[in-house]
């Protein structure tokens, strides 16, 4: 159900496919089915009516975020990004393009990077969500964060959490095998307006080469 920053789409149901399908008559049935499936996934925590439709008002749900469980009430149309930022005050992921282009909202869903603006909060029920806040702290940073500081791979810093999540995924996945082209491919779904790309590449390669970055 996820749109990855590298453009690859995985199975399931994304906000993009939802929007694309909204014009078709089949959409209502598809939507109902998906939510029903989600409701089953989520167990008794997610209320749905007899047709398996949640909403339109706020729906109580539980999200697994950074290793903990967080309860919240949000409308089914609220994106995961807005739920994280507005309801859980996890504001590291940024709302910038709000349409799956810039990667500033990149988080990990079950260990894979996704655009949080392209996932509904309700879709993320049952998944393991990792945000930038769960990756490292200023005092105990992830190797990618350490390297970003060393190479000054940030200026205004607004794209930085998204880049860090993409780069940390790349180092986790490719380890010391990661090369210049690999960093570019892993972050080509992230945009930076201040222009830090060369420093992002240098920082990520160093983190990948380090022991903990693997």
């Amino acid at each position, binding site marked *: 159900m996820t749109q990855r920053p590298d453009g690859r789409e995985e199975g399931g149901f994304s906000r993009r496919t939802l929007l694309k399908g909204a014009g078709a008559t089949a959409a209502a049935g598809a939507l109902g089915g998906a939510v029903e499936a989600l409701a089953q996934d989520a167990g008794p925590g997610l209320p749905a009516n007899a047709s398996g439709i949640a909403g339109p008002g706020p729906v109580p749900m539980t999200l697994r975020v950074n290793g903990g469980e967080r309860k919240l009430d949000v*409308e089914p149309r*609220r994106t995961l990004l*807005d739920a994280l*930022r*507005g309801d859980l*005050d*996890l*504001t*590291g*992921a*940024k*709302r*910038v*393009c*709000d*349409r*799956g*282009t*810039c990667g*500033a909202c990149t988080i990990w869903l079950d260990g894979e990077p996704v655009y949080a603006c392209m996932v509904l909060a309700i879709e993320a029920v049952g998944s393991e969500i990792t945000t*930038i*806040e769960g*990756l*490292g*702290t*200023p005092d105990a*940073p992830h190797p*990618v*964060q350490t390297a*970003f*500081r*060393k190479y*000054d*791979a*940030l*200026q*205004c*810093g*607004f*794209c*930085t*959490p998204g880049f*860090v999540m993409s780069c940390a995924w790349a180092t986790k996945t490719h380890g010391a095998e990661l090369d210049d082209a690999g*960093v*570019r*491919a892993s*972050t*080509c779904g*992230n*945009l*930076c*307006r*201040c*222009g*830090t*790309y*060369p*420093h*992002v*590449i240098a920082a990520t390669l160093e983190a990948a080469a380090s022991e903990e970055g693997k």
Partner: protein
Amino acid sequence: MPRKVTYTVGQAGGPTREISVNVHDLDVDPWGVDAKLRVVGTEVPRLDAAVKASGRAKYTYDMNRPGMAYSRLLRCFHAHAVVTSVDTSAAAKMPGVLGVTTLLDVGGRITFAGKGVVAVCAETEEQLDDALHAIEVAYDVRPGAVTTDDGRAEGAERVDERRDNAVVGRRGRQERGDPDAALAAAAAQVSATFRTQVQTHSALETHGCVVEPTGDGEYTVWASTQGTGSFRGTMARALGIGADKVRVITEHMGGGFGAKLGGVDEWDRAAAFFARDLGRPVKAMLDRRAEHLVAGNRPDSIQEMTLAANAEGEITALVGTTHGTAGNGGGGAGAANTRIYRIPNLRMTQTTVSTFAGRARAFRAPGHPQGIFALDGSVDALAEKMQIDPLAFRLKNDPHPLRQVQWRVGAERIEWERLRREYPGDGTVKRGVGCAAAIWFQRGRGNYVVNLQVARDGSVIVSNAVQDIGTGTRTVLAMLVAEELGLTPERITVRIGDTNFPAGPGSGGSTTAPSIGPAAREAGYHARLALAALLAESWECEPDKIDWSGTTFSGPGGKNSTFDEACKLIGPEGLAVSGQRRPNYKQGFSGETAGCQFAEVEVDTETGVIRVLRIVAVHDAGRIVDPLTARSQVVGGVIQGVSYALHEDRRMDRNLGDMVNPTLDTYRILGIADCPKIDCLLTSIDSGFNNAGMMGLGEPVTVPTAGAVANAVSHALGVRMTELPITPARVLAALGGAR
């Protein structure tokens, strides 16, 4: 009484000059070119890197305040229209709606797509969306030009009914010498029309604020602004209260590039009124479409240039006109295309054309990337016509002593001679190399005060209202103070971006570092003097008997003390001093900062696709305090320049008057996959204008990039590229025209 100081400024190992300056009696002596510095000039990671890289930095967009409501504007997307009816009754009754205010009544005229018509405030963003959709506004839609060509056409609808759309501004005419005679006598001349597009700033954090009433008629405002002071002043005026009742906080800021100067906008005012009336915090951030349409842009340009030289290869004349649109505003669409080179005879007329489009705002080196694209394009064309190497031609006509050095340094780095010889090469994929010049003139200004507190435990706090927009201001302030106190920069706590501290400069025109840095240095110096006075008391000697080695104090009889030991003499109440920015020294090394860039490109002549392989950027910005963050600014300016050269283009629908690509997937900016290799060469000099020898860096680094890329593409193709962005379609069209 000011004291006279004579010292050497310029580049260590390069051009220098000795100057005599009057130094304010409270200020520290200037460093000069030979200063041996311990912190300044070393690579220091920015102080807020960890908090930013861990996602903990709180930007305005990230503020979630207890009881916060949301506000947004219903916008009109017609370029030219008159409101004929507004019905907000349904919206006002909807769940969660807290307020509805009409900004434009029936009869109100709209002169750009994106104008706010109704402001709404609601409990949640979803409820806000629903309410905005429920408002009915009808318009009498009128014709209106949105492009420069259409705006200046005969019979075009006037934006301002009282005057023509096309206006030559106050500084729109330049003339010197006898350009007509010089053209008649020229050994060679070239004429071409250069066109550049409208570019939008596209900062990742959109404009906006969170306004929170704090009781007693006072407000705290988190604002995404490049000027905390101007934002406070304009917000106070909007609310009809004193500036003392408004506190503006900008701890971190997600990009501005000029678009966030100048204070509050209509959406900020709407949020403030809702906050006042509701007694609750209200958040108002622009969405991406509005950011593109209403929050500023770089004007386009049509530059007709004729450049001439004598038989010796000396430029003798430049004659030209420019037209450009800054949207529905008046002036500000000029192109800086008459500087850099010695041009004894000149006539340039610059016309700004009003159009029914969102207004331009200052954008990183206003007028310059477009002007240099046309000027350096003309220079290349003339050199080519005279069969002179373009670099040799520049060396002959460029009077700036430092740029003379920079041209050679950059040429050597990119291997100019070899590449000019070997390129464009055989086959369908051609390569080329080109260059262009940078200029800027920011020495810093103002009389800003930096406060500095030292506690007996040795902790140091530096404070000022100045915002760090991503340039590293926080780090630069810490480094300058650390240098004076013999500390590491990490020891210094910098509190900025808050109008509760002394006023700081707005971050525009590359002013920030040279405007606030010298005050920080003076503050550090005053803290050192205060500690020396305490030591003198303790050591029972005169304060002038205390020496400072850069890390330790020493006094008579072999006594010495580190900073931390001296701090133990401070009373429990702590020590507070300040430093002030003094007027610039009159002389200086050069009033202009210099720079140049070289581009190496590859062009597929079958597809028209351009790859920028490499940029060599050579720049001076006075003394470089932190080469690490300075390089980031250079790299950033280059990347924005490549993006401007090849991709970015605000496309307007000429019939509907709306922007057709107001998103980040359709308004293309350069991504990491296409990012060239960038060599950044900083020529640090003492500028001779202030105690730290600093000047501004942010703007000049984006000035020459598009010109250098265009010249490189022209070299590769053997056809002059005269229009930005240089898209594959334009490459193929140019090749088709040449065939």
